[in-house]
């Protein structure tokens, strides 16, 4: 199947983020000056939602090219938007644009056209708050994604298939992730099967592995399991990544292990890019 459907308002696509909110997420992420993993992930998700909204903004509005769900798993498995969107599952992008829980101002260094850098105060909307409590019911979260997407794919047969991005810092504490990931990846539109990308974030500073093509270089069984359940990158996404200097093999998978914050944002950014966006 080709993964080349045009993404438009009449033919939208969909993102589901599964976020590990287990107790261990309070520990510091590698390479982040002691920042907690749950805070880093929240920043990355909020940044990504902001990028997605801005990417789809035209004139004074936002075009609904995507629906988005954020599901947390830890003490419970449940929708994880905060503020006006709390409790909602799949949310059209224009609702996300108009309903952040709050908008912070943060400092951002911006490259000028002349090669200099200047610091600006920028709006930083918050839709998702950090949380770290309980175990790691990854299997239940993947099942939740399947329940959410089963009707979606049958109602959007001609759409670019949904992309599920699972971010975790450890092994599942239930029966997951293999059987549930397998069922999820069997869902499909006419343009391709649901894509499942997995991202492991780390508290040790060893060299990250991003988009590997084989599992023999991965350090342990947990990493190899996550590799096994990750989708190969569709060729058009891989091509874009290569154009930006990433060294990808034809069989590269949507998987990152031991990712630090920079790697996490790069991983998410690649996962949400599409030349099919119109």
């Amino acid at each position, binding site marked *: 199947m080709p993964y080349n459907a045009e993404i438009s308002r009449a033919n939208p696509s969909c993102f589901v983020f599964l976020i590990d909110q287990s107790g261990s997420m309070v520990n510091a992420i590698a390479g982040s000056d002691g920042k907690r993993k749950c805070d880093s992930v929240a920043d990355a998700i909020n940044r990504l939602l902001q990028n997605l909204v801005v990417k789809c903004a035209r004139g*004074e509005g936002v075009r609904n090219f995507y629906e988005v769900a954020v599901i947390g798993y830890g003490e419970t498995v449940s929708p994880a938007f905060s503020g006006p969107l709390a409790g909602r599952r799949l949310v059209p992008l224009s609702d996300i644009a108009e309903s952040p829980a709050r908008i912070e101002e943060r400092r951002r260094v911006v490259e000028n056209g002349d090669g200099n850098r200047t610091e600006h105060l920028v709006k930083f909307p918050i839709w998702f708050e950090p949380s770290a409590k309980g175990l790691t019911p990854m299997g239940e979260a993947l099942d939740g994604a399947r329940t959410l997407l089963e009707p979606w794919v049958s109602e959007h047969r001609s759409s670019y298939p949904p992309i599920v991005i699972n971010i975790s810092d450890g092994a599942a504490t239930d029966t997951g992730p293999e059987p549930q990931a397998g069922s999820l990846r069997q869902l499909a539109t006419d343009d391709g099967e649901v894509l499942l990308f997995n991202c492991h974030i780390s508290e040790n500073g060893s060299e990250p592995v991003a988009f590997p093509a084989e599992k023999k270089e991965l350090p342990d069984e947990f990493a190899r399991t996550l590799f096994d359940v990750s989708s190969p990158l569709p060729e058009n996404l891989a091509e874009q990544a290569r154009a930006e200097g990433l060294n990808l093999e034809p069989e590269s998978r949507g998987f990152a292990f031991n990712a630090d914050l920079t790697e996490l944002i790069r991983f998410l950014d690649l996962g949400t890019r599409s030349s099919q966006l119109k």
Partner: protein
Amino acid sequence: MEPDVLTFGVSKLGNSAEEYEDAVSSSSEGRRFAIADGATQTSFADRWSQIVSLEFIMNPPSDEPLDKRWTKWLLPLQEAWSSGIPWDTLPWFAAEKARAGACTTLLALEFTPSSTTNDGPGRTLWRRMLGVAKPAAMNWRAEAVGDSCLFHVRDDRLIRSFPLERPTQFTHSPALFTTNPGQNALVCKHIKTLKGDCQPGDLFLLMTDALAKWFLQRHVVGEKPWQTLREVNDEMMFNLFVIQQRDEGRIDNDDTTLMIIRWPEQEGANS
């Protein structure tokens, strides 16, 4: 001598007519023509493509070295674009998108009266005496940034294709003029220029990328796509043609724009 000029445009399927982002402009005396394709990934691109194409007609860049003339020419246009954006009332996402700027292609074409021919006066005199050369009525110069194209047809043959010559040359990331000062310097160094002569009866077709790609795809398989396009004489006919080609998967779903410039035949031009 003035040409007959027709322009047609159809929005991308799924978009409203207000969301059409291509622009075409022509001077009243029929000497300057421009077609521009506002990049759909950017915001307020319709406004930018209109400003750029119209300004080429009203006030084309002065004769300076190629890279400088366009950079300088764009500066007041960038200010005009920005001053038309309702910054104070834009929601946060729309303001951030607009700050990233808008982008457009430009294909600019200008005709000037010919004093000599491109063959040189002596050689052409002999060719005229032999009855194989028409007098050149006009010279033309085209400049292009991006993938909006010009096709020059004479005696039922395509004699120039500019700036792209093959359907495989269309990409997702053509060069574009942007509204951000400082980001055009590199683009302006890569503006393409082509000059030629124009004879009575010549046909010039300007089009944005979806139609230009279709045109070159038909041409490489031996067809004469200008024969189809020059039959188009009203908006409804053009709409039907584009819809049919889209349905058959021959034209990409995009804003689609065509300008036909037809120079009249002259009595006795072949003598």
